[in-house]
């Protein structure tokens, strides 16, 4: 069976966060719970060129949900076996089993696990499995005005867009093997080399 994955085009994303909002809306998420998050990467500084100070800055955005990884570390660490992976790759949390220990949250390097305080349990992106089953795209993909997000069979996405699965500040893909394809922003390598900042930790 083919496995589902996300595509994200960092060169096209404008940082409008329509994906994030559509996800919250579709899933009725609590305040502070974001199944999809947009990280604002910023870097650079003023540069002195022959006595003249010139701004030399860059910025781009990274929209990330759960990557329904091939090696889901969240599933491997969860003590109650509440996290499972379906045949199509979608990683789910069984609400009836989660004890709210938050161990999976420590482990996932994508910040995909989001604790629902009022319900006292962990939640995360389920790839809009209901939409997929109804033949429609996930809410985030449908909402993106820049067509920076897409989804589909991960092998087809890789064939179409290449195998890049990381961009600063995401981790190296060998840890969890995310079902994710990224078209990098032109300044991604520079961000990595210069240790750019994520500018919006407060809101994600």
């Amino acid at each position, binding site marked *: 069976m083919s496995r589902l994955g996300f595509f994200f085009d960092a060169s096209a994303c404008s940082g409008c966060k329509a994906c994030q909002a559509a996800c919250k809306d579709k899933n009725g998420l609590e305040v502070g719970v974001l199944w999809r998050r947009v990280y604002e990467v910023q870097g650079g500084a003023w540069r002195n060129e022959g006595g003249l100070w010139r701004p030399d800055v860059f910025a781009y955005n990274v929209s990330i949900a759960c990557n329904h990884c091939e090696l889901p570390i969240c599933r491997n660490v969860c003590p109650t076996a509440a996290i499972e992976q379906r045949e199509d790759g979608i990683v789910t949390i069984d609400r009836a089993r989660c004890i709210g220990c938050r161990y999976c949250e420590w482990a996932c390097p994508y910040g995909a696990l989001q604790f629902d305080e009022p319900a006292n*349990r962990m939640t995360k992106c389920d790839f809009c499995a209901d939409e997929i089953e109804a033949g429609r795209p996930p809410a985030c993909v449908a909402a993106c005005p820049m067509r920076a997000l897409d989804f589909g069979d991960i092998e087809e996405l890789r064939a179409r867009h290449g195998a890049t699965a990381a961009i600063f500040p995401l*981790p190296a893909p060998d840890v969890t093997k995310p079902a994710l394809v990224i078209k990098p922003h032109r300044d991604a390598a520079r961000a990595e080399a210069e240790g750019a900042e994520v500018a919006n930790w407060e809101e994600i």
Partner: protein
Amino acid sequence: MARREWPLVVFTLLGQTAVGAFGLTAVPLAFSGRSAAGAAEAGGPSLMFVLCAGVAALLAVAAVISFLHLGRPWLAFHAADNIKRSWLSREIFCLIAFLFLAAGLAAWLWLRPESAARPGPLRAAVVAAGLSGLAFLYSMVRVYMLETVPVWRNIHTPASFLVSALLLGSLGSALVLSGLADRTAQGGVPSARYQASVALIAAAAGLAVTIFLTPLAGVFGARAATLRARPGKGIVPLIAVRTLLLAGVGACVLIHGIGANPSAPMKARLFLWTALAGALAAAGVGRWLFYAVYDRIGV
């Protein structure tokens, strides 16, 4: 984040104390030959009983406190469901095994004190409990050695957990020994000097672990994986506090020994209580720091 994790601070320290006390005292006691001395005719509970009951009580309290860290504790019976993959499940499983073995041993010695005179079965049971305790400590270490959390996935985690087990275990059981020596069937077995030496070595090892291995701030400590983890300004003062506390514990043990002076048991006990209080404070500060430096790769 560390503030939220206080139940885990208490849970890990109680668990480590239990493993240390059992391994350092109950196991040698079972093999000392003297444990066979009949408790019944002396009219008091055997030292082995007191140790097993104490360890079981510590573990039970630890288990209850760990519930406070759960969002939905009423589902906690699921916590050992992923033994196949999860070290956290294995930790819980080993905790339950250790708790039941220690409590079972205590119950056995209480109901049939004369069975302590048969060293064979007693030794087998004590070794089984000791092994489950070791497995508990090992899985507790592995729980934190997450591939995605480099500040925990290094030598500091096993070293600091082992130091806590040895320090708190030796001081805790030394107190039990000194407090009960006159009331139990066996005197100060194993010797107080042995407990003191272990505590002294553990305090010295703790100093080295703190100064050299504390993540983000120790001389050879793990460095941050992300820009997000800026060593808070609070880390260095806390390291200083922990260092002073451990040095104080070492000094207490060194100056007085542990109950080394039988002519002044009250004074010895006072030093022992002071040492244990210092060791608990040092371990608490250390574990607090441990959770405070949490930093994973990625976002």
